[in-house]
């Protein structure tokens, strides 16, 4: 197959060729970046919360008199535990994917000079550790004696459990057990390390901080009341939540069930990531539409060229070219145009990625996206040109003898 005549023919249609290559370049750039965005969004939705989501549900009450919260805790804990299907009921300040409750900046020195980031404190009564299903990777399980009474949102001086991600952030490459950190006048000592525990409402500093949580055992009381963690049989969770609402209406008529936050953790998670899934869907739609339009452009232009060159094709056929020679001609032509577009498209892909990095906290586009993008465009180009190329191959040699 000689490439020279193809170049000669393309030179006659410089502008159209250039436009098609430009279109392929744009498609390639958008394809690479959109795929990258989709994958980062989808990865985000698969974050491991570190708790047994399928077996957990939250019930949040508001509107009760704060003075009666100790009494409310006692009534709710004993009544909800009686609902069939409930394995345990605990008091906690927040749950993953729910509203955040204990968000604070921490420092690794008592004077507060070394600011170490903003973390979320999960404060729960002693049973909540087991109920959440947290996975310990170092240190020991919290003991009943670790739970202290609360005067504020966290105890004054507490043993706490941090996630592996937070430990690595605070004390890189050192054993975090026994290390200390502070927030304002509160002092914490690490008693153990957790595999994962996602923050209630995501990370302030982007996806990398989603695991920056601290678990603090504490005694339920005036400062820890109103939000309850139910461990239930997963199959029965909808009915258990219904029963729980009905029970609360009788035992605490003053309290109002916060419907938005009183859900199974599965539901809360689904809501939490809805925006990301939606965006991934939109991006996928854009990619499909873009590839479709690009393919249509290739089909349209190739069809024109086939029509225009009927006589030349006829001459070639009459001079002995086989049908597959004709098909190969158009496919090679398409391959050359797409190649040109891809070279330009890769540069453009990096330019767009740089722009996105400035505005959207995105990492650099991994290099392996480029060959994948290129291959898919080659495939689309070859498929799109196949129809017109076959029509060209069907041109009979006798066409050579006809004048226009």
């Amino acid at each position: 197959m000689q490439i020279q005549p193809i170049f000669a023919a393309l030179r006659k249609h410089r502008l159209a060729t250039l436009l098609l290559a430009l279109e392929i370049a744009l498609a390639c750039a958008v394809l690479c970046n959109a795929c990258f965005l989709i994958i980062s969004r989808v990865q985000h939705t698969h974050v491991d919360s570190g708790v047994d989501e399928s077996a957990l549900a939250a019930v949040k009450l508001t509107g009760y008199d704060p003075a009666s919260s100790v009494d409310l805790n006692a009534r709710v804990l004993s009544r909800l535990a009686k609902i069939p299907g409930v394995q345990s009921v605990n008091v906690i300040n927040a749950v993953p994917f729910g509203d955040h409750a204990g968000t604070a900046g921490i420092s690794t020195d008592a004077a507060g000079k070394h600011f170490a980031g903003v973390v979320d404190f999960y404060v729960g009564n002693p049973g909540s550790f087991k109920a959440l299903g947290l996975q310990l990777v170092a240190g020991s399980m919290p003991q009943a004696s670790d739970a202290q009474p609360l005067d504020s949102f966290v105890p004054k001086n507490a043993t706490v459990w941090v996630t592996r991600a937070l430990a690595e952030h605070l004390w890189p490459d050192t054993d975090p057990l026994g290390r200390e950190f502070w927030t304002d006048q509160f002092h914490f000592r690490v008693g153990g390390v957790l595999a994962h525990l996602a923050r209630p409402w995501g990370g302030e500093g982007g996806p990398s901080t989603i695991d920056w949580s601290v678990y603090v055992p504490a005694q339920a009381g005036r400062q820890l009341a109103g939000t309850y963690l139910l461990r239930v049989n997963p199959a029965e969770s909808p009915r258990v939540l219904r029963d729980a609402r009905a029970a609360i209406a009788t035992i605490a008529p003053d309290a109002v069930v916060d419907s938005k936050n009183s859900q199974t953790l599965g539901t809360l998670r689904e809501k939490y990531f809805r925006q990301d899934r939606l965006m991934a869907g939109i991006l996928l739609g854009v990619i499909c539409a873009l590839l479709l339009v690009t393919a249509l452009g290739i089909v349209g232009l190739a069809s024109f060229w086939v029509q225009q060159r009927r006589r030349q094709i006829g001459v070639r056929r009459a001079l002995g070219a086989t049908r597959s020679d004709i098909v190969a001609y158009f496919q090679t032509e398409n391959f050359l145009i797409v190649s040109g577009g891809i070279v330009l498209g890769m540069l453009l892909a990096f330019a767009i990625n740089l722009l996105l990095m400035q505005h959207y906290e995105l990492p650099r586009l991994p290099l392996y996206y480029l060959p994948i993008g290129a291959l898919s465009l080659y495939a689309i180009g070859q498929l799109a040109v196949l129809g017109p190329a076959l029509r060209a191959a069907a041109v009979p040699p006798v066409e050579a003898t006809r004048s226009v």
Partner: protein
Amino acid sequence: MFAYYLDLAWHSLRRNPILTALMVLAIGLGIGASMTMITVLHVLTDDPLPGRSSQLFTPHLDPLPLNYKQGGDSPDAADNVTWPDAMALLKAHRAERQAAMAGGTLLVRPARADLRPFNVDGRYATADFFAMFGMPFEHGQSWSAADDAARAHVVVLSDTLYRKLFGNGSGIGQDVRLGEHDFRVIGVTADWQPKPMFYADPGAQHYSDVDQFFLPLSAAVDLKLSTNGNQSGWGKNDDSTSLTGATMTWLQFWVQLNSPAQAQAYRQFLVDYSAQQKAQGRFERPSTDAKLYSLMGWLKHENLVPNDVRLQLWLALGFLFVCMVNIVALLLAKFLRRSSEISVRRALGARRRDIFLQLGIESALIGVAGGVLGLVIAQIGLWSVRHRPDDYAQLAQMDMPMLLGTLALAIIASVVAGLLPAWRACRVQPALQLKTS
């Protein structure tokens, strides 16, 4: 002549129905996607109070200490105003009208036995709030400055909440229990929902929040009612988190200034006030940091358009661009193929500009068809936007200007796409073409 060109264009388009359909589809998809996102952006950046917004301003002082550390993604502490500053601006009375305000969510305990207690959002404000924003009243009236001073337990309800609480009976003068306190209903406003809710805290859901009650700010502070929104403090002592303390910003402040001269004078007043506070040692930053934002300027400063919407808009516009490049290539091939026909017309006396016009009309015809298809696609797109979980979702509707804009954009896009091919086509050499064919 126009009718003749239209006829020619129609014939030409019908000669390649598949290609014509491809071009119409491409422009329809591009226009549909773009107009969906342009419409979303349009409703997100719309004027919330047409006719009144040009007279509304929000003053911003910078009481933050020099060493105040701003958290990365947390809202700017200087976006809100401290209690002493708000009271000083109110007392100075330098604007036509002025009001301080803050959002709050309270539990309503209805007197009706068939209603369970429920939470409602509302606003704590000072007396000028209603007149300044031009809020329409259905019954009763707002409270007075004297009620503000007396910390009166009075409340103005929205029509929706009023109907919910009192049915069709009259509730003016009756008490409503909000949180743990009784408030006397003195007025009912028509449901008034500026979108975005420009006067809310920067952290609020500006497109879906609705204020259902209004009560005097002084009473709310007196009763320590819970407030919504960002409270940023920097004090060291215990009263740093007190609502009336001088080291915590949490209030929003708006003024009405009827002329640019008044706005200029007020801006100067803010700088003077800051200078005075700085002289007293309360402010540490330059007095020229004091700003007066117009309503639209403030919305721009707050940047309410979500990042995802911007990204989607860019994607849609990029997509439209790809579609246009596509059409340019197709039209170029199509027009150049008709070189012989064009040559005959030129030989018979048609000028270049006649050919150009004829081909332009053909492109425009594709644009009209693409625009109609684009409108349909945009309606489907907006329908899907309305099913999104975002707070602006319900606002995604196309109005008349947007509808006409869609058609105009489609025609402009296709005519622009046709320019280059038409220019190339009308430059063919008639003699050469006629000879070779």
